[in-house]
């Protein structure tokens, strides 16, 4: 790794907190614009050679995640309940390392559709929710979606989906080879008059910008890519940021406080290094890209006498309107082998149910995709129905695994002020800082849409000729890796935390850009939109810096 090194006495132009999907893009955009950038990342820096095909370590021992051992969380469904400490697996989880969750994600890279940005205008209010339009529309986002596809690297087939929004360029790489699950999803869906299409994936299908093509090892979801084919910012944006000579990525640096002065300007951040020594780094401006859970927590932890409710929180909305995206599964077993453990998780998608339809009687929309879920241990533990969860019936299902597939549903989560991230009043993390408290309960429409999508998935698998089809549970979510909405974007300082350029309404030289900026949840697969927002924000923030408007 190259790049530059800053001293604590240096006042850097920008500190970017977090190096994941958003932080990596932000660092590159600011550094390439000629600004000095220090990225502070709480996790370690791995290389491709450090990643392993060890399902136990990554899926069950949290080796890549924010582990509840040192970063505990508490959870409750409603504010009336006492939150209890989450056990072996975090409620809100992310990969804690340089590149963040862009390392361990599945790499589904749908663009949002035009409706995602203006559903409130199209559908009207939904009582009891904070359902709202975004301050920006799809047309404004389109160039940045294209930028993600070409500069981060996305494989796909432009024009394949009749539902795709307009695009200015095709994908830079062809779609990844279809798997048997994709063929079967396509077969069943086409029989029903639906329009399945090749999945856009942030995984190189051919050698791209110095990275090799995918080797189809199958270890995508939950794993770091050993081959550098997954377009993680660890392999794409971060090295390009460092190559400018104006960016330092300082790993194992846990930012816990943003400092402001009497003029209400950010002066820098406090962080712990790997030996838990405290440092203060000065900066002209700070961009928080710590993800939709930690960005809100950091602002809340930065409370002081001038900001008793947390920094940039005059609206009271920091941490609120937490959204996940619903997720449910339908399992199917076919006559012949699929061998779904091979290659990328998803190769075909159905978007026929993307738009909300008032005729259904509830708000919501979503997508379906074909996948296994995902590796042998997880499938064995989570896929079998209760009556086949052990004994000879269980073993029979295990032996059917090569013939099994999953259709996953991905749907909307309505924004509710009651769903939130805040600071637990008692529990502390291993650094003595307030633990994250999560309050979350799905809106009834979220679950209704999830069941609707599940019904469609059952029909598709039956139409495809499955021998056996069964449903996974649809229940209130108790956690997610999709961390959205907690510093929502808007024009009105009363009802949003950041403006349309991701500048906080309250503090002129403080910006927040990641999943927390989302106004609505979309239908799933938020990383594409997180990165498009980061490209757009990076361009505007760099312009502000050059024009002396920070």
């Amino acid at each position, binding site marked *: 790794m190259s790049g530059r090194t800053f001293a604590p006495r240096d006042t850097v132009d920008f500190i970017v907190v977090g190096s994941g999907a958003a932080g990596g893009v932000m660092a590159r955009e600011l550094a390439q614009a000629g600004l000095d950038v220090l990225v502070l990342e709480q996790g370690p820096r791995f290389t491709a050679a450090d990643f392993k095909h060890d399902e136990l370590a990554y899926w069950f021992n949290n080796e890549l995640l924010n582990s509840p051992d040192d970063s505990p969380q508490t959870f409750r469904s409603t504010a009336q309940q006492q939150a209890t400490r989450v056990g072996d697996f975090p409620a809100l989880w992310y990969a804690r390392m340089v590149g963040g969750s862009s390392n361990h994600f599945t790499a589904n890279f749908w663009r949002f559709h035009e409706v995602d940005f203006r559903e409130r205008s199209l559908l009207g209010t939904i009582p009891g929710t904070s359902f709202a339009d975004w301050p920006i529309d799809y047309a404004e986002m389109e160039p940045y979606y294209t930028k993600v596809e070409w500069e981060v690297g996305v494989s796909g087939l432009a024009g394949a989906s009749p539902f795709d929004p307009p695009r200015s360029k095709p994908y830079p790489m062809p779609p990844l080879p279809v*798997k048997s699950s994709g063929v079967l999803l396509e077969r069943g869906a086409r029989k029903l008059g639906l329009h399945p299409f090749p999945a856009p994936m942030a995984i190189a299908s051919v050698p791209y910008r110095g990275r090799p093509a995918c080797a189809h090892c199958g270890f995508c979801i939950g794993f770091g890519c*050993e081959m550098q084919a997954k377009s993680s910012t660890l392999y794409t944006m971060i090295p390009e940021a460092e190559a400018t000579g104006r960016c330092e990525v300082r790993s194992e640096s846990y930012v816990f406080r943003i400092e402001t002065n009497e003029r209400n300007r950010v002066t820098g951040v406090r962080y712990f290094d790997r030996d838990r020594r405290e440092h203060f780094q000065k900066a002209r401006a700070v961009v928080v890209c710590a993800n939709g859970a930690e960005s809100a927590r950091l602002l809340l932890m930065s409370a002081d006498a001038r900001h008793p409710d947390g920094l940039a929180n005059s609206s009271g909305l920091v941490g609120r309107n937490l959204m996940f995206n619903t997720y449910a599964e339908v399992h199917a077993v076919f006559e*012949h082998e699929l061998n779904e453990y091979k290659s990328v998780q998803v190769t075909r998608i159905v978007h026929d149910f993307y738009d909300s339809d008032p005729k259904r009687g509830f708000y919501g929309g979503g997508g379906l995709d074909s996948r296994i879920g995902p590796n042998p241990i997880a499938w064995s533990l989570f896929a079998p129905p209760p009556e086949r969860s052990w*004994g000879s019936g269980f073993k029979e299902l295990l032996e059917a695994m090569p013939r099994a597939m999953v259709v996953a549903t991905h749907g909307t989560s309505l924004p509710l002020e009651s769903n939130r991230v805040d600071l637990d009043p008692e529990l502390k993390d291993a650094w003595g800082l307030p633990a994250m408290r999560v309050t979350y309960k799905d809106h009834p429409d979220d679950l209704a849409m999830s069941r609707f999508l599940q019904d469609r998935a059952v029909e598709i698998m039956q139409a495809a000729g499955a021998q056996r089809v069964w449903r996974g549970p649809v229940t209130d979510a108790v956690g997610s890796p999709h961390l959205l909405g907690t510093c929502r974007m808007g024009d009105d300082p009363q009802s949003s935390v950041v403006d349309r350029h991701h500048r906080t309404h309250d503090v002129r030289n403080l910006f927040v850009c990641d999943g927390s900026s989302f106004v609505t949840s979309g239908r799933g697969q938020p990383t594409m939109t997180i990165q498009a927002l980061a490209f757009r924000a990076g361009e505007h923030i760099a312009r502000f810096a050059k024009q002396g408007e920070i």
Partner: protein
Amino acid sequence: MNKNETSRRQFLRATGGMLGATWIGTHWPALVAAAEHAHQVASGAVEQTLGILSPTQARDVEAVAAQIVPSGDTPGAREAGVVYFIDHVHAGPYAARAAEFLAGLADFQADFATRNPGVTSFADLPDGAQLAYLKGIETTPFFGTMKFLTVLGLLALPSYGGNAGKLGWKLVGFVDQHAWTPPFGHYDRDYPGFVPYPKEQRS
């Protein structure tokens, strides 16, 4: 980490870090071969000896695991050495949970003794009686833990102590290989290619 594993990591670190991605692209087959070889080394079996469990405890643990994934025409939890996994992880990654696991096991054995006077241990029951007994306790936390550990012991890397001879992976049809080429399964073999939708269907 053994010597071969160390050299594998050094090799991959060199290719990934110093030589760069372009080199990886050009030398792809060699890299795959190296990774495959190394993976086999990394997933090699460990010795089947008991550290934490007494022989009596191990017999009961193995008997419960063998009801969760029974033997038969194909190997089950017993043949895959799940009991050794359960023993080894409680001295390794799950050391912090060892006391809790052993306490749960002790309760299980004590309950069994109370309800089955005259039978020395669960493992001594005939197969059908074992199954019936476990059906009566399948909602207990200890049984849940045993289910979890049995699946892990069947399917985790053999280096954790279970999945002996990769029997677990064979059972579920999983092959640990670092690279595959299409076709991956039966249904994608003769896929004709994606047929675009007629223009008039497009919104």
